[in-house]
């Protein structure tokens, strides 16, 4: 395959991955806020959050694979799997590897949520709040198009969207008035099961 196409695909897939990941974070916050309307039922947010998260992984894989197989960059698979092992922009590429591996951990534990329990899943899911900024920093540090006007506009929209969603999450009062009771009940059930 033409090296040029691989390089452009890496950059295109990286941009799309950032947009998708930001969408996943916003949808995740919306589902935790139990957002719904007459035309948008709550399970649509949850379902879309899950589906877009899986789509993000596919495009991140495309971003990584095209970067690794590009013969010009000769990054190697080790650089794609082990953080800070790359000869090229060690720190910034390392951040990308960390963000990807955090996302893998979040996705796998979400799929195995029934096996690991709600508390463990929730604790690991909080890592999303670490993964997203790490991914954004990776883009700023090593992205070829970082300082292009169109990429800056995309970065700005993504950062604003996530900032607004997270602010709403922090400001909003607990949407479920029975949340404490539910948590207590869940704890009792978990204790009974483990006995």
């Amino acid at each position, binding site marked *: 395959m033409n090296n040029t196409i691989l390089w452009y695909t890496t950059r295109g897939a990286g941009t799309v991955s950032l947009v998708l990941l930001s969408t996943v974070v916003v949808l995740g916050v919306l589902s935790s806020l139990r957002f719904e309307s007459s035309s948008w039922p709550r399970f649509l947010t949850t379902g879309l959050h899950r589906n877009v998260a899986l*789509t993000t992984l596919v495009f991140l894989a495309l971003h990584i694979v095209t970067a690794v197989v590009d013969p010009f*960059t000769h990054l190697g698979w080790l650089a794609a799997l082990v953080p800070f092992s790359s000869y090229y922009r060690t720190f910034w590429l390392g951040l990308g590897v960390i963000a990807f591996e955090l996302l893998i951990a979040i996705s796998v534990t979400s799929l195995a949520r029934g096996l690991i329990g709600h508390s463990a899943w929730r604790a690991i899911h909080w890592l999303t709040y670490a993964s997203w900024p790490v991914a954004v920093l990776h883009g700023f540090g090593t992205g*070829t198009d970082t300082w292009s006007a169109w990429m800056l506009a995309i970065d700005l929209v993504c950062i604003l969207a996530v900032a607004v969603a997270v602010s709403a999450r922090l400001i909003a009062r607990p949407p479920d008035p029975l949340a404490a009771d539910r948590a207590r009940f869940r704890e009792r059930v978990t204790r009974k099961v483990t006995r």
Partner: protein
Amino acid sequence: MQDSKPNETRIRAREAASRMLTTVTAGVAFGAIAGVGLFGVVSAYTIPGVAADSTGATASTSTSTGSTSSALQSSSTTVGSSTSSGVAVSGGS
């Protein structure tokens, strides 16, 4: 019998929402595929990279500053062993 109507309405609403989820997911997936193509073209237009002739001498064809792609442009070994047309590209992700 009177209770079945609200249930039917709920079932229909849920089915409609399920269809909507499928449609929106497919839209996101196709949009993302189109996005890779679109952003690939835009990135190619803004920072096309570096072309090298068969002697290994490089000449920048970039229409913008392309400052972030400089680290790989300095690699001369791969440029020399690139495709038959003698064109190589460089840059980060």
